[in-house]
Protein backbone atom coordinates (compact mmCIF):
# COMPACT_ATOMS: atom_id res chain seq x y z
CA UNK A 1 0.00 0.00 0.00
CA UNK A 2 1.35 3.40 -1.02
CA UNK A 3 1.97 5.38 2.17
CA UNK A 4 4.15 8.15 0.83
CA UNK A 5 4.07 9.08 -2.83
CA UNK A 6 6.52 11.59 -4.28
CA UNK A 7 5.36 12.79 -7.71
CA UNK A 8 7.33 14.95 -10.15
CA UNK A 9 9.22 16.65 -7.34
CA UNK A 10 11.67 19.34 -8.45
CA UNK A 11 13.69 21.82 -6.45
CA UNK A 12 16.50 24.17 -7.47
CA UNK A 13 19.24 25.27 -5.08
CA UNK A 14 21.89 27.42 -6.75
CA UNK A 15 23.31 25.38 -9.60
CA UNK A 16 21.96 22.12 -8.22
CA UNK A 17 18.56 20.72 -9.08
CA UNK A 18 16.43 17.87 -7.80
CA UNK A 19 14.90 16.87 -11.08
CA UNK A 20 11.53 15.19 -11.53
CA UNK A 21 11.76 12.80 -8.59
CA UNK A 22 9.16 10.03 -8.43
CA UNK A 23 8.93 7.20 -5.91
CA UNK A 24 6.58 5.52 -3.44
CA UNK A 25 7.19 4.22 0.02
CA UNK A 26 4.91 1.55 1.46
CA UNK A 27 3.59 1.50 4.99
CA UNK A 28 6.06 -0.03 7.44
CA UNK A 29 8.78 -0.14 4.80
CA UNK A 30 12.47 0.63 5.35
CA UNK A 31 13.33 2.66 2.27
CA UNK A 32 16.88 3.78 1.55
CA UNK A 33 17.94 6.70 -0.65
CA UNK A 34 21.42 5.65 -1.72
CA UNK A 35 23.79 8.05 -3.41
CA UNK A 36 27.19 9.71 -3.36
CA UNK A 37 27.93 12.90 -1.43
CA UNK A 38 26.41 15.84 -3.29
CA UNK A 39 23.90 13.69 -5.16
CA UNK A 40 20.97 15.53 -3.55
CA UNK A 41 19.69 12.79 -1.27
CA UNK A 42 19.73 14.91 1.91
CA UNK A 43 18.06 17.75 0.01
CA UNK A 44 15.37 15.27 -1.04
CA UNK A 45 14.91 14.08 2.54
CA UNK A 46 14.67 17.70 3.72
CA UNK A 47 12.13 18.40 0.98
CA UNK A 48 9.95 15.54 2.26
CA UNK A 49 10.24 17.06 5.75
CA UNK A 50 9.05 20.39 4.38
CA UNK A 51 12.23 22.47 4.70
CA UNK A 52 12.19 23.44 1.02
CA UNK A 53 9.43 24.85 -1.14
CA UNK A 54 9.32 22.31 -3.93
CA UNK A 55 7.40 21.85 -7.16
CA UNK A 56 5.46 18.64 -7.50
CA UNK A 57 3.42 16.54 -5.10
CA UNK A 58 4.17 14.73 -1.88
CA UNK A 59 1.15 12.60 -1.03
CA UNK A 60 1.01 11.22 2.45
CA UNK A 61 -1.80 8.76 3.10
CA UNK A 62 -3.53 10.12 -0.01
CA UNK A 63 -3.27 13.80 1.01
CA UNK A 64 -0.92 16.25 -0.70
CA UNK A 65 1.33 17.63 2.04
CA UNK A 66 3.72 19.51 -0.23
CA UNK A 67 2.32 22.87 0.86
CA UNK A 68 2.27 22.06 4.57
CA UNK A 69 4.87 23.46 6.98
CA UNK A 70 7.26 20.97 8.66
CA UNK A 71 5.35 21.14 11.97
CA UNK A 72 2.22 19.87 10.24
CA UNK A 73 3.76 16.95 8.33
CA UNK A 74 4.10 14.41 11.18
CA UNK A 75 7.62 13.41 10.25
CA UNK A 76 10.50 12.65 12.58
CA UNK A 77 13.93 13.80 11.42
CA UNK A 78 17.34 12.62 12.63
CA UNK A 79 20.40 14.40 11.22
CA UNK A 80 23.78 12.76 10.88
CA UNK A 81 25.24 15.10 13.51
CA UNK A 82 22.08 14.58 15.62
CA UNK A 83 21.20 18.31 16.00
CA UNK A 84 20.40 17.98 19.69
CA UNK A 85 19.43 21.19 21.47
CA UNK A 86 22.45 22.20 23.58
CA UNK A 87 20.33 24.39 25.86
CA UNK A 88 18.20 21.43 26.97
CA UNK A 89 19.14 18.25 28.83
CA UNK A 90 18.38 14.73 27.56
CA UNK A 91 14.88 14.57 29.03
CA UNK A 92 13.98 18.05 27.72
CA UNK A 93 15.35 17.17 24.29
CA UNK A 94 13.31 13.97 24.07
CA UNK A 95 10.14 15.64 25.35
CA UNK A 96 10.56 18.82 23.25
CA UNK A 97 7.51 18.06 21.10
CA UNK A 98 5.25 17.73 24.15
CA UNK A 99 4.65 21.49 24.20
CA UNK A 100 3.53 21.57 20.60
CA UNK A 101 1.87 18.22 19.94
CA UNK A 102 -0.69 16.19 21.79
CA UNK A 103 1.28 13.26 23.21
CA UNK A 104 -0.76 10.75 25.18
CA UNK A 105 0.79 9.62 28.48
CA UNK A 106 4.00 11.59 27.90
CA UNK A 107 5.81 10.27 30.99
CA UNK A 108 4.96 6.67 30.11
CA UNK A 109 6.01 7.24 26.49
CA UNK A 110 9.28 8.76 27.68
CA UNK A 111 10.00 5.81 29.93
CA UNK A 112 9.09 3.26 27.26
CA UNK A 113 11.34 4.86 24.63
CA UNK A 114 14.16 5.61 27.07
CA UNK A 115 14.06 2.04 28.37
CA UNK A 116 14.17 0.57 24.87
CA UNK A 117 17.01 2.86 23.80
CA UNK A 118 18.96 2.48 27.07
CA UNK A 119 18.65 6.15 28.00
CA UNK A 120 16.94 5.95 31.41
CA UNK A 121 20.16 6.66 33.34
CA UNK A 122 21.02 9.60 31.07
CA UNK A 123 17.78 11.57 31.26
CA UNK A 124 19.09 14.39 33.44
CA UNK A 125 22.45 14.63 31.70
CA UNK A 126 23.53 17.61 29.63
CA UNK A 127 24.00 17.04 25.90
CA UNK A 128 27.71 17.95 25.85
CA UNK A 129 28.39 15.10 28.28
CA UNK A 130 27.10 12.36 25.95
CA UNK A 131 29.10 10.09 23.64
CA UNK A 132 28.37 9.96 19.89
CA UNK A 133 26.28 6.78 20.22
CA UNK A 134 24.30 8.22 23.15
CA UNK A 135 23.63 11.42 21.22
CA UNK A 136 22.31 9.40 18.32
CA UNK A 137 19.97 7.44 20.60
CA UNK A 138 18.69 10.69 22.12
CA UNK A 139 18.05 12.11 18.63
CA UNK A 140 16.11 8.97 17.66
CA UNK A 141 14.22 9.00 20.98
CA UNK A 142 13.29 12.66 20.42
CA UNK A 143 11.92 11.83 16.98
CA UNK A 144 10.04 8.73 18.23
CA UNK A 145 8.52 10.63 21.17
CA UNK A 146 6.79 13.02 18.77
CA UNK A 147 4.91 9.98 17.35
CA UNK A 148 5.78 10.61 13.69
CA UNK A 149 4.10 8.68 10.92
CA UNK A 150 7.35 8.52 9.03
CA UNK A 151 10.94 8.58 10.28
CA UNK A 152 13.57 10.34 8.15
CA UNK A 153 17.19 9.43 8.90
CA UNK A 154 20.01 11.43 7.33
CA UNK A 155 23.21 9.34 7.25
CA UNK A 156 22.65 8.11 10.81
CA UNK A 157 25.84 6.03 10.88
CA UNK A 158 28.37 8.39 9.36
CA UNK A 159 29.21 10.18 12.62
CA UNK A 160 29.51 6.89 14.51
CA UNK A 161 32.83 5.19 15.26
CA UNK A 162 33.24 2.36 12.68
CA UNK A 163 33.62 -0.18 15.52
CA UNK A 164 30.02 0.40 16.60
CA UNK A 165 28.41 0.67 13.16
CA UNK A 166 27.29 -2.95 12.94
CA UNK A 167 25.62 -2.89 16.35
CA UNK A 168 23.91 0.42 15.51
CA UNK A 169 22.67 -0.96 12.17
CA UNK A 170 21.07 -3.84 14.06
CA UNK A 171 19.68 -1.33 16.52
CA UNK A 172 18.08 0.73 13.70
CA UNK A 173 16.47 -2.42 12.38
CA UNK A 174 15.17 -3.26 15.88
CA UNK A 175 13.61 0.22 16.20
CA UNK A 176 11.96 -0.18 12.82
CA UNK A 177 10.50 -3.56 13.80
CA UNK A 178 9.37 -2.51 17.28
CA UNK A 179 7.56 0.65 16.20
CA UNK A 180 6.58 -0.62 12.74
CA UNK A 181 7.56 2.83 11.58
CA UNK A 182 7.83 3.72 7.91
CA UNK A 183 11.43 4.81 7.56
CA UNK A 184 13.38 6.62 4.87
CA UNK A 185 17.12 6.63 5.35
CA UNK A 186 19.74 8.47 3.36
CA UNK A 187 23.16 6.91 3.00
CA UNK A 188 26.16 6.72 0.69
CA UNK A 189 27.14 3.30 1.99
CA UNK A 190 25.69 0.41 -0.03
CA UNK A 191 26.63 -2.17 2.62
CA UNK A 192 24.50 -0.24 5.10
CA UNK A 193 21.72 -0.07 2.51
CA UNK A 194 21.92 -3.78 1.78
CA UNK A 195 21.52 -4.67 5.47
CA UNK A 196 18.75 -2.22 6.31
CA UNK A 197 16.66 -1.61 3.23
CA UNK A 198 13.52 -3.34 2.03
CA UNK A 199 13.76 -1.19 -1.08
CA UNK A 200 16.40 1.16 -2.41
CA UNK A 201 16.38 4.21 -4.66
CA UNK A 202 19.69 5.20 -6.24
CA UNK A 203 20.04 9.01 -6.31
CA UNK A 204 22.62 10.54 -8.63
CA UNK A 205 23.04 14.19 -9.63
CA UNK A 206 19.59 15.12 -8.38
CA UNK A 207 17.77 12.30 -10.18
CA UNK A 208 16.60 8.84 -9.23
CA UNK A 209 18.35 6.31 -11.47
CA UNK A 210 16.91 3.09 -10.13
CA UNK A 211 14.33 1.92 -7.60
CA UNK A 212 13.62 -1.60 -6.47
CA UNK A 213 13.97 -4.35 -3.91
CA UNK A 214 17.33 -4.00 -2.21
CA UNK A 215 18.84 -7.24 -3.54
CA UNK A 216 17.72 -6.46 -7.10
CA UNK A 217 19.15 -2.95 -7.11
CA UNK A 218 22.42 -3.99 -5.52
CA UNK A 219 22.92 -7.00 -7.80
CA UNK A 220 21.40 -5.78 -11.05
CA UNK A 221 22.30 -2.13 -11.60
CA UNK A 222 20.17 -0.46 -14.25
CA UNK A 223 23.01 1.37 -15.96
CA UNK A 224 26.74 1.91 -16.07
CA UNK A 225 26.72 4.88 -13.67
CA UNK A 226 24.80 2.94 -11.02
CA UNK A 227 27.07 -0.06 -11.50
CA UNK A 228 30.17 2.07 -11.02
CA UNK A 229 28.68 3.73 -7.94
CA UNK A 230 27.79 0.34 -6.47
CA UNK A 231 31.39 -0.73 -6.87
CA UNK A 232 30.91 -3.11 -9.76
CA UNK A 233 34.23 -4.01 -11.37
CA UNK A 234 35.09 -5.53 -14.72
CA UNK A 235 32.36 -3.70 -16.64
CA UNK A 236 32.95 -4.95 -20.17
CA UNK A 237 31.10 -5.31 -23.51
CA UNK A 238 29.08 -8.52 -23.91
CA UNK A 239 30.81 -9.09 -27.26
CA UNK A 240 33.70 -10.39 -25.18
CA UNK A 241 31.62 -13.34 -24.02
CA UNK A 242 30.34 -14.04 -27.49
CA UNK A 243 27.00 -12.26 -27.29
CA UNK A 244 25.75 -10.27 -30.22
CA UNK A 245 24.52 -7.13 -28.46
CA UNK A 246 25.81 -3.73 -27.36
CA UNK A 247 25.14 -4.40 -23.71
CA UNK A 248 27.65 -4.46 -20.92
CA UNK A 249 28.31 -7.16 -18.38
CA UNK A 250 30.15 -7.25 -15.08
CA UNK A 251 31.89 -10.02 -13.23
CA UNK A 252 32.86 -10.03 -9.57
CA UNK A 253 36.67 -9.92 -9.12
CA UNK A 254 36.31 -12.67 -6.49
CA UNK A 255 34.65 -14.98 -9.06
CA UNK A 256 37.54 -14.82 -11.52
CA UNK A 257 39.91 -17.77 -11.40
CA UNK A 258 43.53 -17.48 -12.45
CA UNK A 259 46.00 -20.05 -13.64
CA UNK A 260 49.30 -20.34 -15.44
CA UNK A 261 47.78 -23.20 -17.41
CA UNK A 262 44.60 -23.47 -19.45
CA UNK A 263 41.54 -23.85 -17.22
CA UNK A 264 38.00 -25.08 -17.69
CA UNK A 265 35.25 -22.49 -17.10
CA UNK A 266 32.29 -21.18 -19.12
CA UNK A 267 34.43 -18.25 -20.24
CA UNK A 268 38.22 -18.47 -20.47
CA UNK A 269 40.62 -15.78 -21.68
CA UNK A 270 44.35 -15.66 -22.12
CA UNK A 271 45.90 -12.34 -21.21
CA UNK A 272 49.00 -10.61 -19.92
CA UNK A 273 49.52 -9.85 -16.24
CA UNK A 274 49.82 -6.06 -15.94
CA UNK A 275 50.02 -5.54 -12.19
CA UNK A 276 49.89 -7.61 -9.02
CA UNK A 277 49.61 -5.90 -5.61
CA UNK A 278 49.53 -7.59 -2.20
CA UNK A 279 46.96 -5.89 0.09
CA UNK A 280 46.59 -7.25 3.67
CA UNK A 281 44.87 -10.58 2.99
CA UNK A 282 44.61 -10.66 -0.80
CA UNK A 283 46.31 -9.84 -4.08
CA UNK A 284 44.82 -7.38 -6.55
CA UNK A 285 45.65 -8.63 -10.02
CA UNK A 286 45.13 -6.71 -13.27
CA UNK A 287 45.13 -8.70 -16.52
CA UNK A 288 45.08 -7.22 -20.02
CA UNK A 289 42.94 -9.16 -22.54
CA UNK A 290 43.01 -7.47 -25.94
CA UNK A 291 42.06 -3.85 -25.34
CA UNK A 292 40.18 -4.62 -22.10
CA UNK A 293 41.44 -5.01 -18.55
CA UNK A 294 40.16 -7.55 -16.01
CA UNK A 295 40.57 -7.09 -12.29
CA UNK A 296 40.70 -10.18 -10.07
CA UNK A 297 41.09 -10.68 -6.33
CA UNK A 298 43.03 -13.61 -5.05
CA UNK A 299 42.76 -14.42 -1.36
CA UNK A 300 46.12 -15.16 0.26
CA UNK A 301 44.61 -18.12 2.10
CA UNK A 302 43.95 -19.75 -1.30
CA UNK A 303 47.28 -18.98 -2.93
CA UNK A 304 50.27 -16.83 -2.06
CA UNK A 305 51.74 -15.22 -5.13
CA UNK A 306 50.70 -13.72 -8.43
CA UNK A 307 50.90 -16.82 -10.68
CA UNK A 308 53.13 -14.95 -13.11
CA UNK A 309 55.50 -12.03 -13.42
CA UNK A 310 54.46 -8.75 -14.98
CA UNK A 311 54.08 -9.07 -18.77
CA UNK A 312 53.78 -12.86 -18.75
CA UNK A 313 50.83 -14.79 -20.15
CA UNK A 314 48.14 -15.99 -17.79
CA UNK A 315 44.68 -17.64 -18.08
CA UNK A 316 41.57 -16.28 -16.41
CA UNK A 317 38.13 -17.88 -16.27
CA UNK A 318 34.65 -17.44 -14.82
CA UNK A 319 31.21 -19.06 -15.06
CA UNK A 320 27.96 -17.80 -16.58
CA UNK A 321 26.29 -17.66 -13.15
CA UNK A 322 28.77 -15.00 -12.04
CA UNK A 323 27.97 -12.66 -14.94
CA UNK A 324 25.66 -9.67 -14.30
CA UNK A 325 24.21 -7.90 -17.31
CA UNK A 326 23.83 -4.11 -17.15
Amino acid at each position, binding site marked *: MKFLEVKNLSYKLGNFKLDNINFNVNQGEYFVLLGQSGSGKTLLL*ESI*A*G*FNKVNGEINFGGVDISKL*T*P*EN*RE*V*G*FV*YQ*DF*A*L*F*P*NLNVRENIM*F*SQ*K*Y*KKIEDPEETLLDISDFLGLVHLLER*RIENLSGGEKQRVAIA*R*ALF*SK*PKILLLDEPLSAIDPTFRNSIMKFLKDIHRRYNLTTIQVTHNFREASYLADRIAIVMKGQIHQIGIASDVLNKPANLEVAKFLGFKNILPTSMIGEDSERLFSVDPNAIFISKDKINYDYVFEGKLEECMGVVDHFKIFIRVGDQQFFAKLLMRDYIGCYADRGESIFIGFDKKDVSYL
Partner: protein
Amino acid sequence: MKQNLFLYGLILFSSIILLFLSVPLIKMIFGGDLGILWETFQQEDVINSIFLTMKVSAMAMIFVLITGLPLAYIISRYNFYGKSMIEALIDIPIMIPHTAAGIALLIVFGRGPIADFFANFGLKFADAEPGIMIAMMFLSATYLINGAKEGFNKVDVKLEKVARTLGASPTQVFLRISIPNAKKDIINGCLMMWGRGLGEFGAVVILVYHPMIAPVLIYDRFTSYGLAHSAPVAAIMIVISIFIFLSVRFINNRLK
Protein backbone atom coordinates in the same frame (compact mmCIF):
# COMPACT_ATOMS: atom_id res chain seq x y z
CA MET B 1 66.17 30.32 23.55
CA LYS B 2 64.55 31.79 20.42
CA GLN B 3 61.20 30.61 21.74
CA ASN B 4 61.83 32.42 25.06
CA LEU B 5 62.84 35.60 23.30
CA PHE B 6 59.64 35.51 21.29
CA LEU B 7 57.59 35.01 24.46
CA TYR B 8 59.42 37.83 26.30
CA GLY B 9 58.76 40.06 23.29
CA LEU B 10 55.05 39.26 23.41
CA ILE B 11 54.90 39.95 27.14
CA LEU B 12 56.79 43.24 26.78
CA PHE B 13 54.49 44.65 24.11
CA SER B 14 51.39 43.37 25.88
CA SER B 15 52.50 45.01 29.12
CA ILE B 16 52.87 48.38 27.42
CA ILE B 17 49.28 48.41 26.17
CA LEU B 18 47.92 46.95 29.43
CA LEU B 19 49.68 49.67 31.44
CA PHE B 20 48.36 52.31 29.09
CA LEU B 21 44.81 51.02 29.58
CA SER B 22 44.95 50.47 33.32
CA VAL B 23 47.06 53.29 34.77
CA PRO B 24 44.57 56.14 34.09
CA LEU B 25 41.77 54.05 35.60
CA ILE B 26 43.81 53.10 38.66
CA LYS B 27 45.01 56.67 39.12
CA MET B 28 41.46 57.96 38.80
CA ILE B 29 40.06 55.49 41.34
CA PHE B 30 42.86 55.34 43.92
CA GLY B 31 44.67 58.64 43.28
CA GLY B 32 42.04 60.90 44.80
CA ASP B 33 41.01 61.69 48.35
CA LEU B 34 38.55 59.04 49.59
CA GLY B 35 36.79 61.62 51.76
CA ILE B 36 36.06 63.84 48.77
CA LEU B 37 34.96 60.79 46.81
CA TRP B 38 32.44 59.85 49.50
CA GLU B 39 31.26 63.44 49.77
CA THR B 40 30.75 63.61 46.00
CA PHE B 41 28.87 60.31 46.07
CA GLN B 42 26.34 61.82 48.47
CA GLN B 43 25.59 64.81 46.24
CA GLU B 44 22.09 64.57 44.80
CA ASP B 45 22.90 65.81 41.30
CA VAL B 46 25.74 63.25 41.03
CA ILE B 47 23.52 60.36 42.16
CA ASN B 48 20.71 61.52 39.86
CA SER B 49 22.95 61.82 36.82
CA ILE B 50 24.56 58.41 37.37
CA PHE B 51 21.15 56.81 37.89
CA LEU B 52 19.78 58.61 34.80
CA THR B 53 22.73 57.45 32.69
CA MET B 54 22.30 53.82 33.73
CA LYS B 55 18.53 53.89 33.38
CA VAL B 56 18.42 55.48 29.95
CA SER B 57 21.28 53.34 28.63
CA ALA B 58 19.41 50.25 29.86
CA MET B 59 16.20 51.46 28.20
CA ALA B 60 18.08 52.05 24.95
CA MET B 61 19.54 48.57 25.22
CA ILE B 62 16.11 46.99 25.83
CA PHE B 63 14.61 48.85 22.86
CA VAL B 64 17.41 47.63 20.57
CA LEU B 65 17.14 44.14 22.05
CA ILE B 66 13.49 43.98 20.99
CA THR B 67 14.01 45.50 17.53
CA GLY B 68 17.60 44.45 16.85
CA LEU B 69 17.27 40.73 17.59
CA PRO B 70 14.85 40.15 14.70
CA LEU B 71 17.13 42.20 12.44
CA ALA B 72 20.21 40.20 13.52
CA TYR B 73 18.28 36.97 12.93
CA ILE B 74 17.18 38.04 9.44
CA ILE B 75 20.77 38.94 8.51
CA SER B 76 22.07 35.67 9.92
CA ARG B 77 19.50 33.37 8.32
CA TYR B 78 18.52 34.90 4.99
CA ASN B 79 20.31 36.03 1.86
CA PHE B 80 18.59 38.87 0.07
CA TYR B 81 19.26 41.82 -2.18
CA GLY B 82 20.70 44.75 -0.20
CA LYS B 83 21.89 42.62 2.73
CA SER B 84 25.42 44.02 2.65
CA MET B 85 23.98 47.56 2.53
CA ILE B 86 22.02 46.86 5.69
CA GLU B 87 25.11 45.40 7.37
CA ALA B 88 27.09 48.52 6.40
CA LEU B 89 24.30 50.74 7.74
CA ILE B 90 24.50 48.95 11.10
CA ASP B 91 28.28 49.47 11.24
CA ILE B 92 28.37 53.12 10.12
CA PRO B 93 27.40 54.75 13.48
CA ILE B 94 30.58 53.48 15.16
CA MET B 95 32.68 55.17 12.48
CA ILE B 96 31.20 58.65 12.35
CA PRO B 97 32.09 61.40 14.88
CA HIS B 98 29.64 61.34 17.76
CA THR B 99 29.07 65.08 17.56
CA ALA B 100 28.15 64.68 13.89
CA ALA B 101 25.67 61.98 14.89
CA GLY B 102 24.28 64.36 17.51
CA ILE B 103 23.76 67.06 14.89
CA ALA B 104 22.03 64.57 12.58
CA LEU B 105 19.74 63.42 15.37
CA LEU B 106 19.00 67.02 16.35
CA ILE B 107 18.02 67.87 12.77
CA VAL B 108 15.70 64.84 12.51
CA PHE B 109 14.26 64.58 16.02
CA GLY B 110 14.82 68.07 17.42
CA ARG B 111 12.69 69.95 14.91
CA GLY B 112 10.69 69.36 11.76
CA PRO B 113 7.92 66.91 10.81
CA ILE B 114 9.28 63.84 12.63
CA ALA B 115 9.71 65.83 15.85
CA ASP B 116 6.19 67.22 15.38
CA PHE B 117 4.80 63.74 14.78
CA PHE B 118 6.24 62.42 18.05
CA ALA B 119 5.19 65.59 19.85
CA ASN B 120 1.58 64.54 19.15
CA PHE B 121 2.18 61.61 21.48
CA GLY B 122 3.89 63.80 24.06
CA LEU B 123 7.35 62.61 23.06
CA LYS B 124 10.01 65.32 23.01
CA PHE B 125 13.65 64.60 22.18
CA ALA B 126 15.56 67.88 22.52
CA ASP B 127 16.55 68.40 26.16
CA ALA B 128 14.54 65.38 27.30
CA GLU B 129 15.24 61.77 28.34
CA PRO B 130 14.03 60.27 25.03
CA GLY B 131 16.70 62.38 23.31
CA ILE B 132 19.40 60.79 25.49
CA MET B 133 17.96 57.40 24.66
CA ILE B 134 18.01 57.87 20.87
CA ALA B 135 21.54 59.28 20.99
CA MET B 136 22.72 56.24 22.95
CA MET B 137 20.79 53.91 20.66
CA PHE B 138 22.13 55.44 17.49
CA LEU B 139 25.75 55.13 18.51
CA SER B 140 25.76 51.81 20.31
CA ALA B 141 23.07 49.60 18.71
CA THR B 142 25.80 48.23 16.42
CA TYR B 143 27.35 46.31 19.30
CA LEU B 144 24.15 44.51 20.22
CA ILE B 145 23.02 43.76 16.68
CA ASN B 146 26.41 42.45 15.58
CA GLY B 147 26.81 40.45 18.80
CA ALA B 148 23.41 38.82 18.28
CA LYS B 149 24.19 38.17 14.61
CA GLU B 150 27.38 36.34 15.60
CA GLY B 151 25.39 34.36 18.14
CA PHE B 152 22.74 33.32 15.61
CA ASN B 153 25.47 32.40 13.12
CA LYS B 154 26.79 29.93 15.67
CA VAL B 155 23.41 28.22 16.09
CA ASP B 156 23.22 25.37 13.61
CA VAL B 157 20.22 25.91 11.37
CA LYS B 158 19.56 22.15 11.63
CA LEU B 159 18.50 22.64 15.25
CA GLU B 160 15.78 24.95 14.04
CA LYS B 161 14.73 22.57 11.26
CA VAL B 162 14.45 19.62 13.63
CA ALA B 163 12.47 21.72 16.10
CA ARG B 164 9.98 22.46 13.31
CA THR B 165 9.47 18.74 12.66
CA LEU B 166 8.79 18.36 16.38
CA GLY B 167 5.82 20.68 16.10
CA ALA B 168 7.25 24.11 16.94
CA SER B 169 6.26 27.11 14.81
CA PRO B 170 8.96 29.52 13.52
CA THR B 171 8.23 31.93 16.42
CA GLN B 172 8.44 29.13 18.97
CA VAL B 173 11.70 27.91 17.44
CA PHE B 174 13.10 31.46 17.57
CA LEU B 175 12.18 31.86 21.23
CA ARG B 176 13.01 28.37 22.48
CA ILE B 177 15.98 27.34 20.33
CA SER B 178 17.59 30.24 18.45
CA ILE B 179 17.71 32.83 21.24
CA PRO B 180 18.66 30.47 24.11
CA ASN B 181 21.49 28.97 22.07
CA ALA B 182 22.79 32.39 21.05
CA LYS B 183 22.31 33.89 24.51
CA LYS B 184 26.00 34.25 25.37
CA ASP B 185 26.67 36.47 22.37
CA ILE B 186 23.39 38.31 22.82
CA ILE B 187 24.19 39.08 26.48
CA ASN B 188 27.70 40.14 25.52
CA GLY B 189 26.21 42.39 22.83
CA CYS B 190 23.77 43.87 25.36
CA LEU B 191 26.59 44.49 27.78
CA MET B 192 28.74 46.13 25.14
CA MET B 193 25.86 48.33 24.05
CA TRP B 194 24.87 49.27 27.57
CA GLY B 195 28.50 49.96 28.53
CA ARG B 196 29.01 52.05 25.40
CA GLY B 197 25.81 53.95 26.19
CA LEU B 198 27.07 54.80 29.67
CA GLY B 199 30.04 56.60 28.15
CA GLU B 200 28.17 58.41 25.40
CA PHE B 201 28.84 62.14 25.43
CA GLY B 202 29.33 63.74 22.01
CA ALA B 203 25.86 63.11 20.59
CA VAL B 204 23.99 63.51 23.88
CA VAL B 205 25.54 66.87 24.73
CA ILE B 206 24.30 68.33 21.44
CA LEU B 207 20.80 66.91 21.72
CA VAL B 208 20.26 67.01 25.50
CA TYR B 209 22.34 69.14 27.87
CA HIS B 210 19.72 68.93 30.58
CA PRO B 211 18.85 66.61 32.26
CA MET B 212 22.54 65.79 32.66
CA ILE B 213 23.86 62.30 32.23
CA ALA B 214 27.11 61.51 34.05
CA PRO B 215 29.49 62.25 31.15
CA VAL B 216 27.82 65.66 30.62
CA LEU B 217 27.97 66.36 34.36
CA ILE B 218 31.70 65.53 34.39
CA TYR B 219 32.24 67.86 31.42
CA ASP B 220 30.09 70.58 32.99
CA ARG B 221 31.95 70.44 36.30
CA PHE B 222 35.30 70.38 34.51
CA THR B 223 34.55 73.47 32.45
CA SER B 224 32.78 75.34 35.29
CA TYR B 225 34.80 74.35 38.39
CA GLY B 226 37.94 72.56 37.20
CA LEU B 227 39.55 69.15 37.58
CA ALA B 228 39.14 68.82 41.34
CA HIS B 229 35.35 68.86 41.08
CA SER B 230 35.01 66.68 38.00
CA ALA B 231 37.51 63.93 38.89
CA PRO B 232 35.55 62.40 41.81
CA VAL B 233 32.41 62.12 39.64
CA ALA B 234 34.47 60.46 36.93
CA ALA B 235 36.00 58.07 39.48
CA ILE B 236 32.59 57.07 40.86
CA MET B 237 31.26 56.51 37.34
CA ILE B 238 34.27 54.36 36.46
CA VAL B 239 33.97 52.23 39.65
CA ILE B 240 30.26 51.61 39.17
CA SER B 241 30.69 50.80 35.47
CA ILE B 242 33.56 48.38 36.12
CA PHE B 243 31.65 46.67 38.93
CA ILE B 244 28.51 46.14 36.83
CA PHE B 245 30.48 45.20 33.74
CA LEU B 246 32.54 42.56 35.55
CA SER B 247 29.48 41.16 37.36
CA VAL B 248 27.49 40.64 34.17
CA ARG B 249 30.51 39.20 32.38
CA PHE B 250 31.13 36.79 35.28
CA ILE B 251 27.50 35.62 35.24
CA ASN B 252 27.55 35.30 31.46
CA ASN B 253 30.73 33.21 31.51
CA ARG B 254 29.09 30.82 33.94
CA LEU B 255 26.09 30.35 31.67
CA LYS B 256 26.08 27.04 29.83
